[in-house]
């Protein structure tokens, strides 16, 4: 149900044509969609105001509305300027004194497309380019304009992604600066995912003679590892242990952060049991964690060995049955 147009414009039933024009203009100044781009609520409100004005600004329509011949929505033209393809209201709009025409549309709806050459007068460069709002952020070269020029060069932000083992052990990596220069980045052992390293004076050179270069900030990302599970400074690896070695004892070779290591398996080891390799974890801040080896007991691969094991177990089962029966 459309609201009473008098109420929408906030005028009395006896308002003069001039009062109505003034009321409409007062509301239009506030609610015009082109002055409130992207604001759907205001656009809806304006639609209502425009529809009300449509009726009340036309002496004949106003008379018919007052006489109850048309209701606030009834004989309404399409609210001016809105282009709804396939909307019967729009077709009706062409019949009325439709000032903007059915293909008009508000300017914002055109301009918002980004292809508008008028807004191209203010290019992205104003925002992203040199001296623009984001120029620092994207570390693009060049000086900031005028008073904001600083003797210190620009800071540079870089990202590096490392495999887990390299991050744990520490390494040296080359990173490319925006200007193409290669920067050697020393990664300390035990660096954590998301940590930012600051390389003092490794950023862009100063624009002024004798000025200090900016800093380089390197955000380090550590790729998750498929072998090592990490908790704080400790790492855990799984080791498959043949059933025979688990029962009788033996050795297994496991990866560590420093390469491979051979670990003794105690007699009668169980699946899930953890063996600790002291001091083989991650070193960070003067502390060093441990490595844990989680034993996973596996059946023999070899078919003959497996058959022998079956035979032995069945023999034992039969013996056990015999003991129960006797």
């Amino acid at each position, binding site marked *: 149900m459309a609201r009473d147009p008098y109420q929408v414009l906030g005028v009395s039933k006896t308002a003069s044509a001039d009062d109505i024009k003034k009321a409409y203009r007062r509301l239009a100044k506030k609610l*015009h969609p082109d002055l409130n*781009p992207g604001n759907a609520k205001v656009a809806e409100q304006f639609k209502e105001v425009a529809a009300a004005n449509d009726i009340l600004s036309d002496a004949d329509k106003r008379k018919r509305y007052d006489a109850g011949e048309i209701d606030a929505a009834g004989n309404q033209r399409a609210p001016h300027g809105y282009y709804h393809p396939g909307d019967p209201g729009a077709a009706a709009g062409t019949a009325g004194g439709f000032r903007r025409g059915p293909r008009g549309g508000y300017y914002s709806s055109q301009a918002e497309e*980004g292809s508008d050459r008028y807004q191209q*007068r203010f290019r992205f460069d104003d925002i992203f380019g040199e001296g623009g709002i984001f120029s620092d952020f994207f570390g693009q070269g060049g000086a900031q304009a005028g008073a904001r020029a600083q003797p210190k060069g620009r800071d540079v932000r870089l990202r590096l992604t490392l495999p887990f083992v390299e991050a744990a052990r520490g390494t040296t990596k080359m990173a490319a600066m925006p200007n193409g220069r290669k920067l050697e980045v020393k990664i300390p052992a035990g660096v954590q995912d998301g940590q930012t390293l600051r390389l003092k004076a490794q950023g862009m050179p100063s624009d002024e003679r004798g000025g200090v270069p900016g800093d380089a900030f390197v955000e380090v990302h550590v790729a998750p590892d498929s072998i090592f599970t990490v908790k704080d400074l400790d790492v855990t690896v799984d080791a498959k242990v043949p059933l025979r070695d688990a029962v009788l004892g033996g050795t297994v070779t496991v990866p560590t952060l420093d390469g491979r290591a051979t670990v003794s398996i105690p007699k009668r080891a169980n699946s899930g049991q953890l063996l600790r390799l002291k001091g083989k974890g991650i070193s960070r801040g003067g502390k060093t964690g441990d490595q844990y080896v989680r034993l996973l007991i596996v059946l023999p691969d070899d078919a003959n060995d497996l058959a022998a094991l079956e035979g032995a177990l069945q023999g034992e089962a039969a013996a056990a049955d015999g003991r129960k029966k006797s």
Partner: protein
Amino acid sequence: MATFEEILTRFEITRADVTSWIEEGLIEPKGEADAYDFDETDTARIGLIVELRRDLEIDDSAIPVVLSLLDQLHAARAALKRIAAAIADLPPDIREQLTAVLGEHASHDAD
């Protein structure tokens, strides 16, 4: 595309109005003075100028200022959309970080 005549009839404006807007650089239709071609953007922009003058009672002398500010607003919105699209392409954890930092800045601004 609309011709000069169609524009004049549609908006109930004079040839002198449109000519002066073109001279001021407020609208830039394609074609030469004798045969301008107004595309949808030009047409909508003329509609905007007409409403700015008639409904919003903005002086002719102030119209270029209003249009320039609106153009800048649209350019800024387009740039923000570009940033929003770039953010949408970031991994979720970084988006969350960004949201958190934006929230912090917003609360500082409110102080």
